[in-house]
């Protein structure tokens, strides 16, 4: 048993690695919620979600010399504004298109926003230093924990709690759940499509802003491909977890973030080169066995497999 632990490198798991993995999982969970919310009401997977995060990160970088509070407000404003613009200009005309067209279009929007950033700011990157102090560690129960780790976990916990309350206790939350279950029927019963969609888009944008803040602390150099890799991984996690329900999508996002953080932390670089292959092979196995997602309920499946 102990030799197995040694082979797997599990003995290298320190408190540091573990807390970092949890923080990464929490950040990815936030992105998963942002993607899952929009998917719930629009049946649209937003590939361009990472570019919302990137826009927020650039806002933070360019307002580095402002007071921190203003800088954060600007970040939220830009990301939510961009999110709304995306809804109006892209999602709305596509509402009745085929899933393939939706996928490729949000792909194109992601590519477009990234190219705009490249044209405007170049490849070198802008440093976002205003929040850098958050990267410093504090000692908690004998473990060095970076402040941002605590913020990531805390903001994920707060955001998820608020969301559960919102979806469970408010009128708009009820309408959103109804829309996610069956949009056509919900509309017939008096749910206003536009207000529900708008609400989902705003909340999803706000979550992207939070993610931008967290990611700029761990990775202060903002480039046009900022958050691109993360978005791809989260999308995979969301589908593997089960995109049809928000809870399973969130859990999928957390799981893939946690696993990435853990393996990235314990495996030496020369051994981890083929790690992506194993992870994605695992993704295929999970999808073939449970096409509706790992955390889906029995009964969610059906149309996903022939």
């Amino acid at each position, binding site marked *: 048993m102990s030799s197995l632990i040694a082979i797997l490198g599990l003995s290298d798991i320190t408190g540091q690695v573990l807390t970092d993995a949890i923080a990464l999982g929490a950040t990815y969970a936030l992105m998963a919620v942002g993607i899952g919310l929009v998917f719930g009401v629009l049946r649209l997977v937003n590939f361009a979600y990472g570019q919302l995060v990137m826009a927020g990160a650039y806002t933070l970088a360019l307002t580095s010399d402002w007071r921190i509070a203003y800088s954060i407000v600007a970040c939220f404003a830009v990301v939510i504004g961009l999110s709304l613009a995306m809804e109006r200009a892209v999602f709305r005309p596509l509402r009745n298109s085929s899933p393939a067209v939706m996928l490729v279009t949000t792909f194109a929007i992601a590519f477009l926003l990234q*190219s705009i950033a490249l044209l405007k700011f170049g490849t070198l990157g802008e440093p976002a230093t205003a929040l850098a102090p958050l990267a410093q560690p504090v000692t908690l129960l004998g473990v060095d924990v970076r402040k941002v780790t605590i913020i990531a976990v805390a903001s994920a916990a707060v955001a998820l709690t608020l969301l559960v309350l919102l979806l469970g206790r408010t009128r708009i939350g009820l309408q959103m759940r109804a829309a996610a279950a069956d949009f056509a029927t919900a509309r017939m019963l008096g749910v206003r499509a536009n207000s529900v969609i708008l609400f989902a888009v705003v909340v999803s944008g706000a979550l992207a802003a939070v993610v931008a803040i967290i990611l700029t602390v761990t990775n202060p150099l903002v480039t046009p491909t900022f958050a691109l890799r993360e978005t791809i991984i989260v999308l995979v996690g969301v589908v593997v977890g089960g995109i049809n329900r928000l809870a399973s999508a969130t859990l999928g996002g957390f799981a893939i973030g946690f696993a990435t953080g853990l393996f990235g932390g314990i495996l030496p670089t020369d051994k981890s080169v*083929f790690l992506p292959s194993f992870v994605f092979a695992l993704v295929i196995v999970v999808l073939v066995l449970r096409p509706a997602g790992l955390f889906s309920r029995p009964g969610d499946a059906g149309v996903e497999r022939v």
Partner: protein
Amino acid sequence: MRRTLDALVVLAAPCVLVIATALLATTLSEANEIYALNAIVGVSIVVGLYVFVGNSGVVSFGHVSFVAVGAFSAGLMSIPVESKTGVLPDVYPFLRDTTYSNIVTLLIAAAAGGVFALVVGVPLMRLNGLAAGIATFAVLEITHNVLRNWTKIGPGPTTLSLVPETTGLRQATAGALIVIVIAWAYQRSRPGRLLRATSMDPAAAQAVGVNVHRQRLWAFALSGALCGFAGGLLVHFIGSMTTEEVYLELTFLSLAMLVIGGATSLWGAVVGALVVSGIDSFLIQAEESIDVVGRTLDLPEGTRLVALGVLMALALILRPSGLTGGREVRLPRRIRST
């Protein structure tokens, strides 16, 4: 008679378009001929992708992995033995000590792409919708990861170089025409029609006895072989390549070409590939300043990608079924009725 004529028009129109592009290229300077060549090789890739995506209605993000496998196997097998030991010191001896001619390596590329697609298709073709999209994307990631790091089967993170540049205008055109003819023959065949039926209504198709999994698998393997072949053409065209050239950007570009043209028709695939390549080449030139109708156009570096993104987004939002509406070319009614 009329139906045969209609079918021949469906085949002839894309062929004529490709040949016209090739003829246009012969009138251009050598520097500009490259753009036309690139566009024609692009046609092969997009039509290969179309054979699966267009007929089955399932989006695949994994087809560029078949292009990659084709390109690297064709490239590897055509580098002369005497230079291989220098550029690829680590590869397995049986790969290092053999070299085949241009045509043979293209066939190897097609076989490699087809077999690879068949193998991964067995589990993958059970999936629908988003799960299929993510699973095919996973194939792309795995292929890229392995090709990039396993130096016994290829160049790894370095550039595969010294590949004989045998894809000239004639070979590119011939290759594209072969791919178009195969795609046309497949969509007219019984398996092709059965697959079309499954994309219209999977439940109804299953109810009348179509085996969805099997039909999709055949199309996936065929389209993998065509993409592998196209990869072979690509590597023989550019002469040296890294794994990054057959990864995310090409995946995005080939899918965008297909959807912009109109994903459900062969005509759409060809039009999309040529139109997008044409615009792209124009923008590349415009970044280096060109004369357009008497005025000099000089765009700043990076405008090309933004303009391309805007055009793609606009095309997709304004014409979701593609420039061709996803329909094949048809003769005007007047001629057809005679």
